[in-house]
C-alpha cells in the first residue's frame, strides 16, 4: 500500500510540477475575439461583491472584447480552473497591481507601436511618455501615490474606449472625472492648488456649450491642459492654447502692444481679461477704467491705454445702441406691411461689422475698432434711410387718399345740390 501512495504522490507532484512548469498559455488572444477565461468564470460566482465586480463588467471591457484576458494585466494562467494554478505567482500572477507600477504596466502594451497596430492603425502610443512629463507623472515619480494614474481616469475594470459615451473620459464626462480630485479643496490645498477650478469651469460658456448644447468640440479640462501630459499651460503659452480655437482673436492680440507688454510683465495673455476657468460671455461694458471694468487693473487714468479704452468703449456703445434703435424701427415698419428686404440686408451687414469690431478689440487699436464701427454705422444709416423711405411712402399714401376724399366730398356736395334743385 505504501507503494501505491508513494506512486500516487510522485505522479501527482510530477503532474503539478509539469503543469506549473509548463509555460502559461498567452493571455493575449486574437484581436477582436472575446476571450473566455477561467478568471471571469470563477470570479462571477463569488459572494464577495468587491471580487465579483470586475467579472460583472468584463463583457463590456474593451481589453476582454479585444482578446486580452484578465491575466494580460494581472498575470496568472487564465486557462486553468484550479485557482491555485490560475493565481500562482509562478505563473506570473501579481494580484492587485500597485499604484506606482500602473503607468508602466499599461504602457508595456500601449506604448508599443508595433503591438498596438494589431488593434487600430492610428491609435496613439505616446500616452506614457506624455504622462511622465505631466504634473501627475512627476509627482508619482517622487513617490506621491495620491495622484492620478491611468486607472484613475479610464477606470480599472470595464474600461471603455474614450469615444464611448459611458467612458469617464468621454468629453462630456471629463470634468466630473477630473473633479473627483480637483474638486476636493482639502486635497488640492496640499499641492497649492485652489480647488475651485471645477466649480469655476462649470460657470463657463465652454461648459454650457458642452453640456447644454452637446457641442463635443467645446473645450474641457484636457483641451487646454492636455490629457496624458496634464499640466497647466505656462504664462507664455496661454494665448497658444486659447488660440488653437480662437485663431482670429489670437492673431489680433499678437499684433497688439499687449503681447509684448504682457510677456514682459509675466502676465498670462487671454486669461488676464477673460479668466482661465470661469470664462464667461465677454461684455462690451468690460472696456474702460471704471469699477467693474478690466482696463483699470493695469492702466492708470489718463494714460495711452485708458484713453484708447474710452474711445473703443464709446465707439462700440454708439454702434450698439444705433443697432437697437434701427432694428426696432425696421421691425415696426415691416409689421405695418412695408417691404424691408433692403433694410434687413443692411442690418445683417451692420451686425457683421459689429461682430468684427468686437474682434478688433484684441488689437487694442482704436483705429481698427472704429473702422468696423464706422462700417456698421454706415450700414445702419442705410437701413434707417430705407425705413424712413417706407414711412414717407405711408404718409404719401395718406395724402393721396386725402385727395380722393376731397373728390368724393365734392361729388357728395354736388349731388346734394342736384337733389335740392330737383325737388324744388
Amino acid at each position, binding site marked *: 500500500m505504501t507503494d501505491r501512495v508513494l506512486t500516487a504522490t510522485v505522479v501527482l507532484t510530477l503532474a503539478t510540477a509539469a503543469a506549473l512548469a509548463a509555460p502559461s498559455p498567452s493571455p493575449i488572444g486574437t484581436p477582436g475575439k472575446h476571450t473566455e477565461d477561467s478568471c471571469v468564470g470563477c470570479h462571477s460566482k463569488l459572494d464577495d461583491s468587491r471580487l465579483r465586480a470586475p467579472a460583472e463588467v468584463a463583457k463590456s471591457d474593451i481589453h476582454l472584447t479585444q482578446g486580452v484576458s484578465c491575466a494580460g494585466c494581472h498575470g496568472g494562467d487564465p486557462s486553468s480552473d484550479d485557482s491555485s494554478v490560475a493565481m500562482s505567482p509562478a505563473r506570473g500572477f501579481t494580484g492587485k497591481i500597485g499604484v506606482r507600477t500602473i503607468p508602466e504596466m499599461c504602457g508595456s502594451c500601449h506604448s508599443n507601436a508595433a503591438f498596438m497596430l494589431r488593434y487600430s492603425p492610428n491609435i496613439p502610443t505616446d500616452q506614457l511618455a506624455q504622462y511622465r512629463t505631466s504634473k501627475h507623472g512627476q509627482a508619482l515619480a517622487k513617490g506621491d501615490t495620491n495622484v492620478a494614474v491611468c486607472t484613475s481616469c479610464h477606470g480599472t475594470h470595464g474600461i471603455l474606449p474614450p469615444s464611448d459615451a459611458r467612458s469617464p473620459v468621454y468629453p462630456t464626462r471629463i470634468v466630473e472625472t477630473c473633479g473627483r480630485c480637483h474638486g476636493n479643496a482639502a486635497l488640492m490645498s496640499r499641492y497649492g492648488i485652489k480647488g475651485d477650478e471645477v466649480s469655476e469651469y462649470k460657470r463657463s460658456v465652454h461648459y454650457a456649450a458642452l453640456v447644454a448644447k452637446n457641442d463635443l468640440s467645446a473645450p474641457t479640462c484636457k483641451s487646454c491642459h492636455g490629457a496624458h501630459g496634464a499640466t497647466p499651460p505656462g504664462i507664455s503659452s496661454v494665448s497658444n492654447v486659447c488660440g488653437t480655437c480662437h485663431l482670429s482673436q489670437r492673431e489680433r492680440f499678437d499684433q497688439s502692444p499687449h503681447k509684448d507688454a504682457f510677456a514682459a510683465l509675466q502676465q498670462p495673455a487671454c486669461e488676464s481679461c477673460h479668466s482661465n476657468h470661469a470664462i464667461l460671455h465677454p461684455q462690451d461694458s468690460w472696456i474702460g477704467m471704471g469699477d467693474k471694468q478690466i482696463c483699470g487693473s493695469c492702466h492708470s487714468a489718463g494714460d495711452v491705454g485708458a484713453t484708447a479704452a474710452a474711445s473703443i468703449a464709446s465707439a462700440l456703445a454708439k454702434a450698439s445702441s444705433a443697432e437697437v434703435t434701427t432694428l426696432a424701427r425696421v421691425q415696426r415698419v415691416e409689421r405695418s406691411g412695408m417691404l424691408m428686404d433692403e433694410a434687413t440686408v443692411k442690418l445683417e451687414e451692420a451686425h457683421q461689422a459689429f461682430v468684427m469690431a468686437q474682434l478688433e478689440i484684441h488689437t487694442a487699436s482704436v483705429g481698427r475698432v472704429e473702422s468696423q464701427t464706422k462700417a456698421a454705422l454706415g450700414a445702419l444709416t442705410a437701413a434707417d434711410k430705407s425705413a424712413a423711405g417706407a414711412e414717407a411712402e405711408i404718409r404719401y*399714401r395718406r395724402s393721396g387718399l386725402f385727395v380722393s376724399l376731397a373728390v*368724393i366730398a365734392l361729388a357728395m356736395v354736388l349731388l346734394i345740390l342736384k337733389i335740392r334743385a330737383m325737388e324744388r
Partner: protein
Amino acid sequence: MRMLEEFWQALDERFDLAPLVEFATHKEVPRHRHSWAYYFGGLTLFFFLVQITTGILLLLYYRPTSEAAFESVQFIVTRVPFGWLVRSVHSWSANLMILSAFAHMFSVYFLGSYAKPRELTWWSGFALLGLAVGFGFSGYLLPWNELSFFATRIGTDMVSKVPFAGAWLLKFLRGGEDVTGATLTRFFGFHVAVLPMITAALLGLHLALIQRQGMHVPEGLEEEAKTRKPIPFVPNFMLRESVVWLLGLAALAALAAFFPWELGVKADPFASAPAGIHPEWYFLFMFETLKLIPAHVLGIEGELLGLGVFGLGGLVWFLVPVLDRGSRKGHRTRAFLVLGWLLLAYIVSFTLASLAGVFK
C-alpha cells in the same frame, strides 16, 4: 342717343321690359321723421359689394395654405401695386358692413318693421347677419398672423361647449382637433364659396321681399307719411342713396389712410399666445360677458351657461315677429321696445368698455 333708344327697343321687344320700368318709376319711399333709417340697408349692401370686389381682387394673389398665406398677403401689401389699399379697404369694409348691419337691424327693430307681413324679411335678415359675422370670423384667419391664429383658436374653442354636438362641431370647423393649415383651407372654402353662395340666395330673397312689399311706415307716423310727398325711388331716392354710399366710400378711404391694416407677424402654432388676445370688436360684448361669468354656476359650467343664455337670447330675437303679438295687429308691445333698448345699451356699453380697457 339714337343708338341707346334703338338698343332699348331691341331689349324691350325680346324681354318686355315695360312692366319693370313701370314698377321702377312708380316705386316710392315714404317720407317721415325717421326716413333716414331707410338708408342703412342699402349702406350694408354697398359695403358688401365693396367686399365682393376687393375680395375677388385679393383672390388673384392670395394662397390659402399655412406655408404661403402670410407670405402671399405680405406680397399683396408690399409688391402688388395698390395691394395695400385693396387689402386695407377689404379689412375695414368688413367692419363697416357689420356695423351698418347692426344699425340696420336695430333701426328696423325700433321702427317695428319686423311686424306682419314682414316676418320672413326679418328672418332672412337675421340669417344674413349671422352670415356676415361668419364672413368676418372666417376671413379673420386668412392672413395667418399671430393675432388671427390665436383669436380663431379661442373662438372655435367656444363651440366645443355646445352639448352633444360640441366635439363634432369643433372638428367640423377646425378640420381637425386643433387650428392648423387644414383649418385655414377650410375657412377659405367657407369664406369664398359656401358663405357667398348662401348669402346670394338669402340676399336675393331679402331684396325681392322688400320690392314686393314696399317700405314699412312705422306705427304712429302713418299720418305724417300720408301728408308729406313720398320720395320717388328713381331718381330721387337713388341719388340720395348715392350720397350715403359716397359717404361710405369716403369713410373707407379715410380709414385706409389713417389706420392702415397691419400685416403683423406670421402665426407660430407652437408659440404661446401673446398677451391681450381678443376677438374682433363685434364679438367683444359676448367675450367680456363670458369672462365675467364664474367658472361654475349652480353646478353648470359657467361658459356653457353663458352660451346657453346667448343662444336663448338669439332665439327670442329671431322669434320677435311671432312673440310680439301686438305687432301683428299694428300695435307693438311696449315691453319689446324696452327689450330692444336694453339690448342695444348692453351691446354698446360692453363693447365700448372693452375697447377702453375697463375689463382688464
